[in-house]
Structure formats: structure tokens, C-alpha cells
């Protein structure tokens, strides 16, 4: 197990270098430059000032030099400063947005798994019944409905018509003066709709996985044996079948980890949530290379770690992998 782990960890290094190299080239291949975005179509900017700006950002140097200077900084854990007009350190920009995205995604993820697993089990145990069909329709509606449309409808209904929930943002104006409990309650109210919308869409995939995996397990000989022993259906399903049926979901969970730091642009824009999705989108659109690279590198790193964790979990859950 230790050698397996060590090998996997060493493998991460060349992978990271490869990823950074590819991302760096791709983002520079995209036409347009940060300077262009800031000054284009502005008659008050002369050509000299453009050139000056390019030089300031080091964009006049050959690409490989730019890459090495970036990697050099990265090795010292310095992601550089943003090219946008605020010139702030990339780390700072990511830091102020990461907690929101992360907590939102973790809650949504828990909710997704918390709902999808029981839905999958119920659908499997009541296969082809009205319950199964009803649940299937329900989760597929979630899958098919466009997020922005559903979000706007909910906003109008709960926010404008009923006035139960706040429409957007994270806090009510003036919530700074609330007591701690009131403050948290206020924030929780703001999060209800976004989390609901975020989770609804992913229920279909997860619950269908759970259903088919469960069906697969229920058909196995050892389940027949368990039933033949005279165990109650409850014990058979939740003790014997469920454990085995959960294995594929571990892989899915591993894949979800990098997704935790990424946000959806559409969704964040609609609910005015200052998350990573907006940051990434804006920096790509304005060709803010340091920010783009910073987010990509962190994302790549988490993806690799996520895969590693999934593999380790697998090994823990399944002796065949551990000893294989």
C-alpha cells in the first residue's frame, strides 16, 4: 500500500508539469491579449502606450521565457499579479472567492448524494413500479430543465411573489449589525435557492448510477443466499446489498472533488454569488493570464489529488484492488 501510494504521488510531478505547459500554451494561443482588452477602441490610447503596457506585463518576451519566469515564481508559491487593472496578487483574488464556492459546492454535493442514494435505492427496490417511474420522471425533469430558467422562475415565485426568500447575493444589506445566529440564518436563507437549483440538476445522473448498481447487486447470488437465510428484506438491502452497490459512487465522489473549486458562470451570475466561476470566466475573457493559470493549476492539482483519494478509497473498500 505504501509503495503504491508513493508511486502514485511521484507520478503527480510530471503530470503537473505537462498540464501547466499545455494550459500555458493554449491560453496564449487564443487570439487577443490582456493589453488589447484594456485599451482597444479607446481613442485616448496611443500605440506607444500599448507597447509600454505590453512591456510592463512582459508580453514582449518570447513565450518560453514567459513560461519559465512563471514556473520559477510558481516554484516559490507565487502565482504572480493579475494583469487586470487592479494588479492584485492572484492568490488574493482566488482566496476571497474560494470559501464561498467551496462551501456552496460541499453543501450541494452532500445534498446530491444524500438525495440521490435513497432515490436510487427506492427506484431499484421498486423496479418498474409507479414509484420508480415517478422518481425517474422527477430526476429527469431536473436534468432537462435549463438552470437559468428554473432559477428565474423560483426567484420570481419565492422572492417577488411570496417574498419568502431573498433573491440574490449572500447577505441582506446591513446584516453586519445582526447577531451571529441571525446573521447565519440570513445567509442560510440566501443559500436555499442556489443550492436547490444546483443539486436538482445532478440528481438524475447520480440516482441512475445508484439504481443500476443496486439492481446489479440485487441480482447477485449472495443476495439470493441472504434472502434464503430468512433475513428481513431491510437487512438484505441496507446491509448486504447497499455496501457493494456504493462502490461505483466512490469513483464519482472522487471525480467531484476538483469540481468543488469550480463554479458555474451562469448559476453564479444569476444568483450574484461571487464565486470562482465568475472569476475564471472574466479572466479568460480579458485574457488575464496569471489568474487563468493560477486557477487552472490549482484545479489540476485538486483533480489529481481527487483521483488519488478515489483510488485510495477504492483500495480500502475493495480488497481485490488492495492486493491485486
Amino acid at each position: 500500500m505504501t509503495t503504491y501510494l508513493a508511486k502514485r504521488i511521484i507520478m503527480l510531478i510530471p503530470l503537473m508539469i505537462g498540464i501547466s505547459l499545455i494550459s500555458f500554451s493554449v491560453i496564449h494561443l487564443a487570439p487577443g491579449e490582456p493589453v488589447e482588452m484594456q485599451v482597444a477602441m479607446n481613442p485616448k490610447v496611443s500605440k506607444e502606450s500599448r507597447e509600454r503596457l505590453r512591456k510592463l506585463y512582459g508580453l514582449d518576451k518570447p513565450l518560453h521565457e514567459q513560461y519559465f519566469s512563471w514556473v520559477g515564481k510558481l516554484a516559490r508559491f507565487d502565482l504572480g499579479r493579475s494583469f487586470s487593472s487592479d494588479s492584485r496578487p492572484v492568490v488574493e483574488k482566488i482566496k476571497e472567492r474560494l470559501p464561498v464556492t467551496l462551501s456552496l459546492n460541499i453543501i450541494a454535493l452532500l445534498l446530491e448524494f444524500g438525495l440521490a442514494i435513497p432515490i436510487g435505492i427506492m427506484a431499484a427496490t421498486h423496479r418498474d413500479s409507479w414509484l420508480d417511474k415517478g422518481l425517474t420522471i422527477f430526476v429527469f425533469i431536473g436534468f432537462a430543465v435549463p438552470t437559468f430558467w428554473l432559477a428565474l422562475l423560483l426567484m420570481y415565485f419565492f422572492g417577488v411573489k411570496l417574498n419568502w426568500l431573498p433573491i440574490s447575493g449572500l447577505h441582506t444589506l446591513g446584516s453586519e449589525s445582526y447577531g451571529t445566529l441571525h446573521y447565519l440564518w440570513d445567509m442560510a436563507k440566501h443559500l436555499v435557492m442556489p443550492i436547490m437549483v444546483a443539486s436538482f440538476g445532478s440528481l438524475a445522473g447520480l440516482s441512475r448510477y445508484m439504481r443500476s448498481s443496486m439492481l446489479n447487486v440485487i441480482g447477485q447470488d449472495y443476495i439470493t443466499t441472504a434472502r434464503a437465510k430468512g433475513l428481513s428484506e431491510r437487512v438484505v438491502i441496507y446491509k448486504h446489498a447497499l455496501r457493494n452497490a456504493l462502490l461505483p459512487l466512490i469513483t464519482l465522489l472522487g471525480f467531484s472533488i476538483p469540481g468543488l473549486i469550480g463554479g458555474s458562470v451562469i448559476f453564479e451570475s444569476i444568483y450574484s454569488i461571487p464565486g470562482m466561476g465568475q472569476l475564471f470566466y472574466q479572466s479568460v475573457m480579458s485574457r488575464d493570464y496569471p489568474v487563468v493559470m493560477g486557477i487552472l493549476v490549482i484545479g489540476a492539482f485538486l483533480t489529481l489529488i481527487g483521483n488519488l483519494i478515489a483510488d485510495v478509497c477504492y483500495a480500502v473498500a475493495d480488497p481485490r484492488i488492495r492486493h491485486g
Partner: protein
Amino acid sequence: MSAARWFMLLHLCSVLFLVACSQPVTQQKPAGAKDSKPAYGDAIVEGTIGEASTLIPILASDSASHAVAGQIYNGLVKYDKNLNIVGDLAESYDISADGLTIVFHLRHGVKWHDGAPFTSRDVLYTYRVVIDPKTPTAYAEDFKQVKSISALGAYTVKVTYATPFAPALASWGMNILPAHLLEGQDITKSPLTRKPVGTGPYRFKEWIAGQKIVLESNHDYFEGRPWIDRYIYRIIPDTSTMYMEMKAGGVDLMSLTPVQYARQTTTERFTSRFNKYRYPSSGYLYMGYNLRHPLFTDQRVRQALTAAIDKDELIHGVLFGMGQKAHGPIVPGRWAYNPNVKDIAYDPKVASRLLAEAGWKEKNSDGILVRDGKPFRFTILTNQGNQQRLLTAQIVQQRLRFVGIDVKIRIVEWATFLKEFIDKGNFEVVLLAWNISQDPDMYDIWHSSKTNPGELNFIGYKNSEVDRLLVEGRSTFDIEKRKRAYFRIQEILAIDQPYTFLYVPDALPVVSARIRGVEPAPAGIGHNQIKWYVPKDEQVY
């Protein structure tokens, strides 16, 4: 929508998005008719789709930053509600008879938000940092015309120019920065980019990234303490969300889209809670022809294209009527606008005749005009993310098809659009908009020396008379002389049709009825913001 933010051609002084040009300002009946006495207190929440990038305005090129900075800083001069230049931090100014020297007499007793006095040192510092090659600013150009600048004591500044330069005075609307906090530092890394210190009506309180920027009223403001205590910018990137926030009471001031203005905000319930305003914005949409392309070298062809397009239909279909036809590069209502220019009216028959004169006589089996065996076919290029432009392009496509021209539409992401198409002259027709400054100087857009890659006369327009007039117009302070030059330019452009000028959309702000004292004027509604108030019994924050 987001791409529109980049179309910035603003002087630093015309910062508010509420700034517009003169001409009919209409307002729905004022809601909350019973007027109570002004009272201090309450807050105003403005919804903004973009977040400010930096609050040192010379470093910013986005309108969101300038909007916030406009509340915090002042320039030496500003535009008043009728768009005349008046003193701001400068109490008065004198321009020498030859137009080469401007002397600013600064206000006494103005204090920075941290209590330090405002003096000529701040003006000199701001000038020096703007022209400093190490400062990444987009606003150095106007100030490079300055030959010398000096302080005659703590409250007088003398600026000398090498040649008379008409936009010079307005350029001093640039926000003045505090020398005592910035001198000797790297301005891009200054804490003031996030925590600005200015002289303006509102002082900075807090900025929560991605959520809001909160300003507090400056009790010592030299024009008097603003009635409303706090000014809050809420960042809401989605316009539909912002609209719902407003209906739910979370936003007091925002810009409506034409469809929202015309269709969704007409109920009694809405109009009793909000006041809508409507006046021409300071920009126009146009179709620009690449004049280096053989299809568009013939003036008659360009005139024909204009005659084939029904501008009224565009305004009706795209803007729900919330706009007016554009005839030239100056928006109606400005002093430089020539009302006598004869625009080419919509008339497909005239279009066909002009095309026939230019050799486009026969049509092929698809009904497309053909000359020398080649069909009349081109692509309209526009940028991604702007629904109005896409709709406009589609209607134009339809209209041109009627006279036998086959038009394709291509939408390209903004960065690519600039780099690969505009800068390289690699396009046939573009659909774009200009936001124009209060000063009519448009040298950079039309002068033949500005046709190099990356410059703004990207369509390659060359007319020696226009060149001469452009120089004439910017090198005198005499309004009558300038007027003559710009009037003539408009006449020439109306005949040449290097662009088909399409329309000037209206600005459509809406303000909560709780807020009183809003006074629409040629400059929009933002000019008297410090006099806005909320009666005591209606305050909510």
C-alpha cells in the same frame, strides 16, 4: 451586455452612466407625489452588472470603476447639467486669448477625506503620474499635449500647450489624486486602489469583493453634505436578477432594458413605486464598411446599402421604440450636432437604382445581384454577447436580401474580434457602437493618419477635407469656428456614408419613488445626486 462595457470612449469626467446628451427628457408621472421635506439619512442602492476593478480611476478602463470613483473624487472642471464646462475643484479658470494657456484657480479649504488639505501639489502630482511611462493608464494622450505646467502658489495652476487644443479644458475633468498618499510610491500597488481617498461627496467605507461597495456621505463636502447617508453599489451580473431585486426592493437605481421599460414596467403597481426616466444615451450603433474592400469603394454602393435599411424598423424591433435614428457621428442635441444634414431615407427603389448605377444590374436564379459573374455577398461581423447587435444584424440581413444582397452574420468573441479582425483589417462590414465623449473631437476615428493596425479609423476612411476640418475643429476654443468645422464634417459623412449610422439608443434609468429630488436634465439624472433625499418617514435603511 458585458462587451458593451468595453466600448468606452469616455473622458474621465463624464463618468456616470447616467450622463447623456441633451434633448427630450421624458419622465413617467412622478410617483409618491406628496413631497415631504428633505432629511438626512437612508441609503441608495444602485445595481451594477460589473464590479469595479480599481478605485484609482486613471488605472481603470471600465465604466464600473469610473462610476464609483466619480462619487469619491473630483476633477478641476466638470460638465454641469446642461453640459457646459464649469469649475469643480477649480473655482474658476482663465484661458489666454491665443488658447495656449489655461490658469486654474483652485478652491480654498477643500479637504481630502483623511483631513489633509487639497492644493496645487495634488494637481501637479496627478499630471506627472498620468504621463509617467511606468503608469499603466489609458488616459495619458490628452496630457502629452501639455508643454509645461507649474504651480503659482498653493491654489493656482498654470498649464501651457504648444498648440491650441480644444479638448484640453475638458481633459482636466480627470479625477485629481491625493499626492500626500501616493507620491513616491508604485501607484499600481497602492492600498488606495482598494481604499480610495478623495475629495468627493462620498467617502469610501468598504468593498466586499463580488458583492458590494459601500460609500458614506462626506459631511465636509465643499458643495454641502449629501442628504443620503450611504451610497451602495450592489454587484448583480445578471440583468433579469437585478430587475427582480428591484421589484423586491433590493435595488433602488438601475438601467432598464428596452423591453423592460416598454412592456414589463407599465403596471400601476410598478409606477407607483418607481420613477422611470428616458433620454438619448451618448452613443450610436453603426455599420462600418471596410473601405479597402473592392465591394465598398464605390460611394453609390454605400449609399444604396443605407437606403435599403429601414432604421425605424430597427428602432421599433430591437429597441421597442426606445431610441432615435442616427444620421452622423454626433448625437442629436449636442451643440456640434448639425440638424440640417440630409439623411438618406429608407427607399428600396433608390437603393436598387444606385446599385444598378454601380453596375449591379442583373440578378441570378437565387435573386442575388451579380456583377461580372460575381454575386453581391458579404459578412457582417459583430461581437459576442450583445443581443441588440445580433437582432440588428438579422433585421439588416433581411432588408438587404430584399434588394438582392446576400448577407451572412458572424459573431466573434471580443478579444478575437479585435485582434484577428479589426486590427488586421480582416473584415467586410462590422456592426459596432461608439460611446462618444461630450467634446465633439473625433480626430482618432476619422483622420486618415489613424488607419494603421490597431488604430481607430480601422475602416480606412480617407478624405482630405475631413482631415483638415478635424484639425481645425480641435485647435480652437471658439465654439462658432468649431461648430462650422463639425457641421461640415457631418455633411460630408452623410454623402460619403463610410458608416451607415443606425440608431442612438435611449438611456433608461429607473429610480425608487422613495428617492426625491431627482431632476432630469440634458446631462441625465446624475448631476444633482447630492441633492437627492428620502423624506424622514419613508427611510428604510
